[in-house]
């Protein structure tokens, strides 16, 4: 089957790839480009482990076709840290022990970035509903939500006790 040529900006870099029409953006990221930080937990848009930001919008990359990435700007978990400086969300996840196995963690961090880009001052309920598309089976979400609320406050410049 003929492959399609696609050009997109991925984590700030102009990226070109060839993909089959049925390949999802998740397949492309993982198997074509080698960005394996986005995970496949369900391939049906239910678990959020493959969350990426496409043109400012949080999506499950398993529900986007690779060819749809043409001309888009995409941020994956690999693009969240700036060089060797962790993003404050990543740092707070570590400090709050907001991960156990770490498999859902990339998706949760990308989803949190999208949340705080849109709403820097979420309530706990807003954070819980925003992250309701990201399944975590290990933590019971307690420390995840604490990390999100803490980093939101820090990024707003508020001192947190």
């Amino acid at each position, binding site marked *: 089957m003929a492959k399609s040529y696609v050009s997109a900006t991925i984590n700030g870099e102009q990226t070109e790839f060839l993909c*089959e029409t*049925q390949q999802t953006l998740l397949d492309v990221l*993982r198997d074509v480009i080698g*960005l*394996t*930080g*986005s*995970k*496949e*937990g*369900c*391939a*049906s848009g*239910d*678990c959020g*482990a493959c969350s990426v930001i496409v043109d400012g919008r949080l999506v499950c990359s398993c529900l986007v076709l690779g060819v749809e990435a043409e001309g888009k700007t995409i941020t*994956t*978990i*690999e693009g*969240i*840290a700036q060089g060797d400086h*962790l993003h404050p969300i*990543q740092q707070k*996840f*570590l*400090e*709050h*022990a907001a*991960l*156990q*196995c*770490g*498999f*859902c*963690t*990339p998706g949760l*961090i990308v989803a949190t970035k999208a949340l705080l880009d849109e709403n820097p001052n979420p309530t706990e*309920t807003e*954070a*819980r*509903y925003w*992250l*309701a*598309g*990201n*399944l*975590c*089976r*290990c*933590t*019971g*979400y*307690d*420390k*995840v*939500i*604490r990390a999100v609320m803490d980093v939101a406050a820090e990024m707003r410049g508020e001192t947190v006790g």
Partner: protein
Amino acid sequence: MNYIASDLKVVGTRPIRPDGVDKVTGRALFAADTRAAGMLWGKIKRSPHAHARILSIDTSKAMALPGVKAVVTAEDFPDIASEEAFVGEGPMNFRDLALNVMARGKALYEGHAVAAVAATTQAIADQALDLIDVKYEVLPFVIDVEAAMAPDAPILHDDLFTAGVTPVPTKPSNIAKVVTFKKGDAEAGFKDADVIIEGRYTTQPVHQAYIEPHACLATYSPDGQINIHASSQGHFMIRAYTAKLLGLELSDIRVNPAEIGGGFGGKTLIYLEPVAVALSKKAGRSVKMQMTREEVFRGSGPTSGATIEVKLGAKKDGTIVAAKQVLKYQAGAFPGSPIGPGCMCGFAMYDLPNVDVVGYDVVSNRPKVAAYRAPGAPITSFAVESAMDELALKLGIDALTLREKNAAKNGTKTHYGPTHQNIGFTAVLDAVKSHAHWKTPVKEGQGRGLAVGFWFNIGGESTATVHVNEDGSVTAATGSPDIGGSRASIGMMVAEVLGVPAERVRTVVADTASIGFTHLTGGSRVTFATGMAATQAAEKVVDDLKRRAAATWEIPVDAVEWKDGKAYPAGSNAGAFEPLDLAALALKAARTGGPIAAEVAVNAQGAGAGFGAHIADVSVDKETGHVTIERYTAIQDVGKAIHPSYVEGQIQGGAAQGIGWALNEEYIYNAKGQMENAGFLDYRVPVASDVPMIEAVLVEVPNPRHPFGARGVGEVPIVPPMAAIANAIRSATGLRMVDLPMSPPKVRAAIDAAG
């Protein structure tokens, strides 16, 4: 050495875990993230039928498809004999596992593997699966546990005869085993009782639902050497099962432990690895396999659904004088439900004079069950702790008081044999009594439930090495896959013994060729047993460092003291020498005996049993039947929290899984014996908006058998939630829910039935 009464500098603090940055940046490599040159994709063809004889499998069309490099069926695997296996968690037979990995003769459940292909792309592999022509003779099937026990039920295995009954049966049965435990005289006890409570409870199979599907990458080399990258709870377990199922030597197989994306017991057995190796051998190329989510639900093991009858007899003052339980656990298609622990754990929290427990291990046409966090205990405890609530109500005694009155203490002989020692159950109940949640009145319109839980915890075989590197930094290696922070806890114990900061120790999980045998990560054993091995290895290193300092200073070794990561002369008589730290001693290593390293292998005994108590406040929407968890507190004796954040995390995560088990999760079957909800949309695990903050309260009654007092913590927290929530619903509505899950339709139906 024992550090329980010591002034600790690292243990009990909350450093950032050694593998943390890899996991927040997406660098951590899980099994599906690994690749090999020329790699093929392996896929499994699964039975659409719940029960069917396999008449023929024609693979010729699949093999003819361009891009297909290998097809395997049961014919490509040795037909191994029945043999008990002790390499996973819970009972297993190598032959059963072989038949589960690839059906031979019969498909025993919808989703049972019948063939597999390896192809150059996933799409071609999927096409090839459709081209494999399997002719079936569809057989009558049975799904429900009690239906499977009926005399006229369709029989799964012609060679399965009920064990544990006399006379030895001559007719095959779906009842694999009957187990009984008796203490005292239960019938006499019930005659003495002032009050008797009886109830019948049912639970549905629930899946561990780890977010990472099973995956592996296998390479068979022409010299017979095999390399496997896989996600599991035990790479030595993968090696043992793969070798046995393929008739190979253990030393021919090297298993590299990929990061594991959750397991909860479900990755203590194997599904893919022998298939990937067989495909790789046939194709002469590496083969990667990963299950889809649907395959995880249909083809890998949930835990048992069950029917449980409970009878309790008590005096008016609340003293329980007799207790009885009949438990029927689904094993899935092969024997081996957690019926043993089910029979033991329900009453393990109480000091009971007369107990009678009977358990049945029953096969039916469902996926073979796998361990799930405190296997068997949550099911039995849902029934017993619900019955305890009914007893408290009938006696007019507070739920906590009833439990205090009957609580097991040190010296209590259990109905299954052992006597409780060094347990902290009383301290847990004291913590409930003094907790603000328990003391705060229940809010208007809500209900409150209390339930307690028990898990044995285990020790067992572990190996650990500690190396002081040439610059004085430290590497600790173990054979225990890190499923939720054990690199951190093990590194912290090593750092404490060496007297260095936690960050100075890097902990790694070594592959099967690089470290001694280590039993799998399960039974809440790693921080206890592997932690013990690592602590002892660090102690050996300290002894060696003292010897080297003594040699450098030319003084006796007992004149050297190790403190805060340095060797000091012990007192003024020893001489005046500048202390030597790890870096200084490492620099001199070549002249003082060579590399500084120690390996310790243990078979750890004395894992302290764990007890927990959960308090749930709920509200019930009478229109929809929806239950909201308004407040949740989980109190547990953890012995000693090595890294308190990850101990809290275990408790919070276990409680949340229990909330899902209580309110949502279940396998739903259609009339053909096929699972109808094999996806996260319809099999709904709790999401962030379903749960409140879960307060984890750590009670620390040290386990004297561990150097730092640790007990296993990961399993206890899934035991109490179902009954705690059922009891809270009873408190809120007056309705006793006896069938899990307590989903909106069932709660609404109960409300309607009550008028």
